Every structure is written in structure tokens, then in C-alpha cells.
């Protein structure tokens, strides 16, 4: 049986058979059935190239994540003096290890807590709600527990990154980040 791409349908203007025609005439056939026809070899080649591209992409993403995800030695960064934050008060600060903007909370006299401010859903800034002891994301009504950082309501599924604090002679230092566990 003659393969469809070689079958003679529309004659070329010079009248010679399709076998004697240049390759482009077979690649760009005038006839609709041949134009829509995909040879098995072409299809297999396309599938293989697509699979290779997908696999290469995965490897690339893995390498990129591995390079960026390696833990870096956390730097201690002074945030505030402990006595400048009132009980129930909040102080925003920047701590690059926690992804930038963070919030320092003082729910009671002895407790200091700090969380990354980026919502784990789509990255909006969360705002504290002292009455309900929650951190609220206004974008999609997400809510996090202000004592643990765990998601309570709305679309976020992962907890906020928690910034480890140290009190060194009355000055609070950010000393690291507890990455949220899934």
C-alpha cells in the first residue's frame, strides 16, 4: 500500500510524479487529507522529543531547587529591645532568611513570637488580629494561629515560617527560621 504522504492526488504544475518532486512539496501538500495526516514516525519523534524536554525540565528544576534550597548559616539580627514592645504590641521587621517582611508579636509579658508575614497561599501580607489571636490574610480570608503559625481557615495549607528569637541582655535577636512543615 502506498503511504498517504506519497499518494498522488493533486498533480504538481510540471506534471511529474510526486516521487520526483522536491521534498517541500510532500511537507506542504495541497490536499487536505495529506495535510492532516501525521506519519507514525513523525508522531513517535514528536512524543519522544516532548518526553525528553519534560525530563530535562524536571532535572533542571531539581538542580535549581537543590542549589537554592541548601540551608545557609542563619545570621543573628537585632530586632528590638524587649521593653520597647508593649504587651499585645506588634513590630514589623525585615529578616531575609524568613523571606523578607516579618512580624514580632508580644502576646503576654514573657512571650515573644515572630513569624514571616507572607501568606503561604499566594504571598499577601498577613495582619495581626490581637483579639482573636490570629494572623489574617485579607486577600482570600486566610487565618493563621498567632501562637503557632498554623493555618486555621481559608485557602492556606502550610504554616507561616516561624522566626527563632533570642533575648540577649534585653535585646531581641532573630537567629533562624523554622521552615514550615507541610
Amino acid at each position, binding site marked *: 500500500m502506498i503511504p498517504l504522504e506519497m499518494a498522488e*492526488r*493533486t498533480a504538481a504544475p510540471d506534471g511529474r510524479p510526486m516521487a520526483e518532486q522536491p521534498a517541500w512539496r510532500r511537507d*506542504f501538500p*495541497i*490536499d*487536505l487529507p495529506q495535510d492532516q495526516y501525521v506519519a507514525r514516525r513523525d508522531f513517535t519523534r514528536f512524543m519522544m522529543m516532548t518526553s525528553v524536554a519534560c525530563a530535562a525540565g524536571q532535572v533542571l528544576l531539581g538542580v535549581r531547587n537543590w542549589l537554592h534550597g541548601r540551608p545557609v548559616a542563619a545570621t543573628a539580627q537585632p530586632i528590638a529591645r524587649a521593653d520597647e514592645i508593649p504587651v499585645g504590641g506588634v513590630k514589623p521587621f525585615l529578616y531575609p532568611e524568613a523571606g523578607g517582611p516579618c512580624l514580632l508579636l508580644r502576646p503576654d509579658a514573657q512571650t515573644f513570637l515572630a513569624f514571616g508575614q507572607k501568606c503561604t497561599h499566594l504571598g499577601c501580607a498577613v495582619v495581626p488580629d490581637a483579639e482573636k489571636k490570629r494572623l489574617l490574610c485579607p486577600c482570600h480570608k486566610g487565618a493563621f494561629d498567632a501562637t503557632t503559625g498554623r493555618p486555621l481557615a481559608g485557602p492556606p495549607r502550610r504554616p507561616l515560617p516561624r522566626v527563632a528569637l533570642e533575648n540577649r541582655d534585653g535585646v531581641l535577636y532573630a537567629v533562624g527560621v523554622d521552615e514550615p512543615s507541610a
Partner: protein
Amino acid sequence: MPVPDDMEFFIDPNRCIGCRACVQACGECDTHRGHPMIQLEYVDRAHSTQTVPVVCMHCESPTCAEVCPADAIKKEEDGVVLSARKPRCVGCNNCVLACPFGVPKMDTEYDLMMKCDMCYDRTSVGRKPMCASVCPSGALFFGTRERLAAERPRSAPVNRFQFGGQTVTTKVRMLTPRDGRPEYVDVVSAMSEESAGKRISLDPMLGAMYDGEDET
């Protein structure tokens, strides 16, 4: 579904009365509403009222498709040459310039070539094209060869046309007088040929409408 093999399209310019019903009907078709794909041409406007409907002749080796740089013009399995495929057409006008019959037209509004596709949505399900379904004089006929032979015994279909050095064979056939049936229609020679019919004056101020003078 292809157009049935036994159904063919015939044009008989002798019968055209210039009523433009075909143009109107074509423009009403849902697939290109408001844009008639058929043209009604005057053969020699200065001397005659004779008109001729121009539809796509659906060439066996379509010149429009040969010159298309975007691979946009395709021929169906049954020989019907379709309008340009919208995602591919680049609006270059090559087909408009190349078609020996002057069929494709560029629609600048859509930047797309549009032409008669023999109402493929209708003919592929066994119905007549819009123009042939309304033509009151039978200048556009879509039907079987047997029926044509029975109804018009003095006509013979021709589907070869000569344009200088290019011979074009078409799916649509032109009816010619059976007496002295030509093998092909030499279009370029015919254009410079003097009319063999009676001369008609279109200017009523000149007096008689028909002067009865034969031209040879």
C-alpha cells in the same frame, strides 16, 4: 463527508440574466454572512448587457494553493478547493493575483482571503450550493450529468481552460454549444475576440435599443 461523485456543478453563461439572485443568496449563507463569494461580471459592459456568474472553478492543480506561501489553501478529497484556513492565511494577496479566473478576494476587514468553496457545508451533505438553488434561469446548475444531458441536449460541458501557456483543468464545468464543441476554452484569445452576437445599444438617447447590426 465528500460531495457525491455524481453531483457536478455546471455554469452556463448563455443563460445568465444578471438578476443577482445568486449574489444575494450567497451573501445570506451563514458561513460568510453578508459577504457574497460569487461575482457577477459583465462580459463587455460597453456593448452588451451579458453577465456571467463567476464561482471558484476548483482547479485540479489550484494555482492559488500553489502560490500560497502560508500553506493556507487546501483541496478536499473530492476536489473542492476550500477558502483560506483562517489561522494560516497571512493576507499576502498572492492567490488574488495568481488565480487565472480572478476568484479569490482579499477581505481587508479580516485580513483573510475568502472565496467560493462550493458551499461545502451544503454540497457535502448532498444539497445544492446557495447560488444554484436560487438561479431562476439555470445558468448555475448543480446536478447529475444525466439530468443535464436530458434537459440541455444542445450543450456540452468543458472543463479545460487555456491561459496563454497554462492549461487549467477544473472540477466545475462550463457549458458550451454542442455543435463544434471545443476541447478547451482559450480564455486569452476569447478576450480579444470580437463579439459574434448582435450589438445592443445601452444608451436610450440613441434611439433604437437594438440596431440589428450583425458583427462578424
